[in-house]
């Protein structure tokens, strides 16, 4: 069973006076209960555009996002429909996602469904704070009285208030220090396991995604180039871009080597290369790459690269 289904989603941004930028080009992705799906890729590859569509913050220009079988309707200024309240998002910057002028407890209550009233409602505050490892006394304090890591935990408590079944976390620990990173990551993973939630975990930190994700999807210039169970993806990356990303992560060792450099720059999505989008930077590019590669299923994963299409199909 899948909880969140992203089905053929396209996202276009239309800057004034310029050509439309196709930020996301036909992405399929699904998240099951109790599953962490990691989404990695370089900045500008469309990760955040996809996250915003997946959470229903912006409409896709084509395709559909379904939560628990029903299409997610983009929010605009309206409140989230009751049947979609289980889809929540945690943002990168906890300084911006909490209201600086309201006490923490009050903000947490915003997320508690209206039919929970009276003492049950008031009791939610200490429960939520305890879930994220914060003291009940935090309820009467304001966001500026907390450190970055604590604030991110409060933002997570806010996302947990409506008892979500899927959380979309867009770079949730990027702004934090190493030790608070570990605290917040452990918290998120613990919540997913314990509450059987699904999580789409978006990050440019491959090592971190390797550590926690069950499935990893790799995105390049708006397309998913490879998806596989995390262990398989790291042990046997099928796409040259996945390989390049893994090789670029600096590792600790007694006999260190410099990470491998990938040639070239990420092209401007407004004029992406025809055919395989990675071909201009790919060390293995050959003539077939002038054509867009099909996505082929390999074991539990899938990859879009001509190197993995066994027999060249003629005609």
């Amino acid at each position, binding site marked *: 069973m899948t909880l969140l289904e992203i089905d053929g989603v396209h996202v276009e941004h239309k800057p004034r006076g310029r050509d439309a930028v196709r930020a996301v080009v036909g992405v399929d992705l699904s998240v099951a209960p109790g599953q962490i799906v990691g989404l990695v890729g370089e900045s500008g590859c469309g990760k955040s555009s996809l996250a915003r569509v997946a959470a229903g913050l912006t409409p896709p220009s084509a395709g559909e996002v379904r939560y628990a079988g029903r299409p997610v309707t983009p929010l605009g200024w309206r409140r989230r429909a009751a049947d979609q309240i289980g889809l929540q998002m945690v943002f990168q910057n906890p300084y911006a996602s909490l209201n600086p002028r309201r006490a923490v407890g009050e903000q947490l209550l915003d997320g508690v469904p209206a039919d929970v009233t009276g003492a049950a409602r008031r009791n939610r505050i200490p429960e939520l704070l305890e879930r994220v490892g914060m003291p009940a006394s935090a309820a009467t304090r304001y966001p500026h009285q907390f450190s970055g890591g604590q604030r991110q935990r409060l933002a997570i408590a806010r996302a947990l208030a409506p008892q979500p079944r899927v959380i979309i976390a867009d770079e949730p620990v990027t702004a934090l220090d190493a030790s608070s990173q570990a605290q917040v990551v452990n918290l998120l993973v613990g919540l997913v396991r314990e509450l059987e939630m699904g999580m789409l975990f978006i990050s440019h930190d491959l090592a971190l995604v390797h550590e926690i994700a069950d499935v990893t999807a790799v995105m390049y210039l708006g397309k998913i180039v490879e998806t596989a169970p995390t*262990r398989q993806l790291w042990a046997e990356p099928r796409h040259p871009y996945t390989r390049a990303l893994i090789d*670029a992560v600096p590792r600790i060792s007694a006999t260190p080597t410099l990470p491998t450099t990938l040639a070239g720059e990420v092209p401007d999505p407004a004029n992406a290369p025809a055919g395989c989008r990675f071909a201009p930077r790919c060390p293995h590019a050959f003539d077939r790459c002038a054509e867009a590669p099909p996505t082929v299923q390999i074991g539990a994963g899938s990859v879009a690269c001509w190197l993995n299409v066994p027999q060249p199909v003629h005609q």
Partner: protein
Amino acid sequence: MGALLDIDRLAVALPGPRGPLPILHDVSLTVGEGELVGIAGESGCGKSITAQTVLGLLPPGATVTGSARFDGTELLNLDRKGWQRVRGAGIAMVFQDPSAALHPMLTVGRQLTEHMRVHLGVDRKAAKRRAIDLLDQVRLPDPERALDAYPHQFSGGMRQRVAIASALAAQPRLLIADEPTTALDVTVQAGILGLLDRLRRETGLAVAFITHDLGVLSALTARSYVFYAGRVVENGPTGALLTEPRHPYTAALLGARPHGGQSTATLTPIPGGPPAPGELPPGCAFSPRCTHVRDDCRTAVPPLLQAGPARETACVIRPELEAAA
């Protein structure tokens, strides 16, 4: 000892609302000619203040004791003229945010050639040639065209390469890089680490690389210092320091990072947070968060002592930790 940069028992206090706030305590650190030295620790541990002291960028009212010598010249009592000679041509700096280091309204060419004309006294034509050469060295595509472009026309990674080219323009002997790759993608980071290593090999550039990423520390640097709460708690050859840490804080930092486990949240967070300056606990500043803590940790600040070849650590229980390992 002829280290290029020789910091000796440096202490810095910044003015606070209730009197001077001690930020750095007794920091000694050297960077040799052509050496890549790493400086690691969490935010607020004094890494950047050390860099600012060496560049004379401390805020007014700061009190500084100890010594910081660059190529034999004492930096702590330099006047304006003296700093002008040291900055740029002696010591240059690269910051985390390249957009803050580059002037948004001047072309890249203008920003690169200005230093050269001031510090190297070359004419416009020669400066332009050298600017193109520098941009080529940092592997910026199409350097000639880049000279007429403005910083906003580049991506973050390219801007950081322009900032590095600009820092190198006046041929400094020491480059201080303060988290220069933290905001960048791993692929771009790999390029910049490769660039710094190549410059060191080819031109003998010395680099002090400040980072909180221990993977970067390992890949790039030969020798490292780990800072905690304004002190050096451990130093030594990077490989040995990261594979066999002698200070519990270094070990805890290593435990808090992903190391390729599987879906079970195997990160080991360090409990609590670093102390604020002016609120240091008595004795070892790491003791409240240390899993090996015992009574004598809280009585006196442990001194940095020899701990193996070319290594030092400031921990009273170190011998026992080693015996247990």
